[in-house]
């Protein structure tokens, strides 16, 4: 049987994940997603992986959540409310979710997965010095490629999101004004 800390963290994580998708205002959804990521970090702590938990908090709660919140603020609020939702589509989505949950759940419960591994509290935890050693020896090429990927993606994001020029910006503002006039 799962312990109460696990159940509390599970309810928090799944609940905030659902709120993130269902909140009326996108900004609350973004904050809720950050709390969900925090819950995942809590599970990493439960799994005796403090290093990964810290990484998770730094990257997801620190960087990704702030990035998403800034984007939500950049995108005009009016555009966020134009999304029309189909009732039928929503029902089908919930049905699909329940089908996935029940079928995979039944599969997992009959898989005998618990017999393979002992209780987490009795088996020894992974030492995080081992993670550092692996990253700098066996996984060193992957680490370098990862750094290049990160740099490339940041440059790509900048190139995508930058404004062309001042004159282009004026034109854009004009366009936006015209768009606004058309809509009102």
């Amino acid at each position, binding site marked *: 049987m799962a312990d109460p800390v696990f159940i509390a963290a599970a309810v928090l994580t799944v609940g905030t994940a659902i709120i993130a998708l269902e909140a009326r205002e996108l900004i609350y959804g973004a904050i809720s997603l950050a709390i969900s990521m925090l819950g995942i970090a809590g599970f*990493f702590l439960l799994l005796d992986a403090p290093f990964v938990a810290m990484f998770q908090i730094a990257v997801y709660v620190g960087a990704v959540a702030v990035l998403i919140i800034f984007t939500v603020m950049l995108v005009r609020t009016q555009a966020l409310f134009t999304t029309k939702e189909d009732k039928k589509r929503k029902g089908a989505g919930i049905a699909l979710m329940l089908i996935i949950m029940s079928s995979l759940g039944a599969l997992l419960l009959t898989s005998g997965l618990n017999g393979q591994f002992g209780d987490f509290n009795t088996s020894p935890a992974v030492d995080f010095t081992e993670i550092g050693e692996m990253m700098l020896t066996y996984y060193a090429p992957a680490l370098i490629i990862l750094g290049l990927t990160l740099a490339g993606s940041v440059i790509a994001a900048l190139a995508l999101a930058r404004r062309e020029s001042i004159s282009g910006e004026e034109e854009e503002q004009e366009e936006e004004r015209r768009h606004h006039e058309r809509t009102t």
Partner: protein
Amino acid sequence: MSELLDFVILSMVLVAVGIYGLVVKRNAIRMLFSIEIIANAANLLLVAFSRGLPNAQGQVVALFSIAIAAAEVAVGLGLIIVAYRLYKEIDVAELRSMRG
């Protein structure tokens, strides 16, 4: 006391929630949320099995996965901003009908 199966079931629930979001939502930012939830479920599974074996490689791969997900979010949000600037819209169905 928590066991491996609890974590696997939790991860499965998170994936199901993420797939629900991807199927139902038409707002591009919300679809990005769904992708993040699914990626986090995968990370949770990696770390859980790493703890169960026990083997440090799962945690190393989880760290790489977190970093890649951060890069993916940066590019995804950049694309959303460009789409918004071009079409004044982030509804993916509307974007599809306005191509060309």
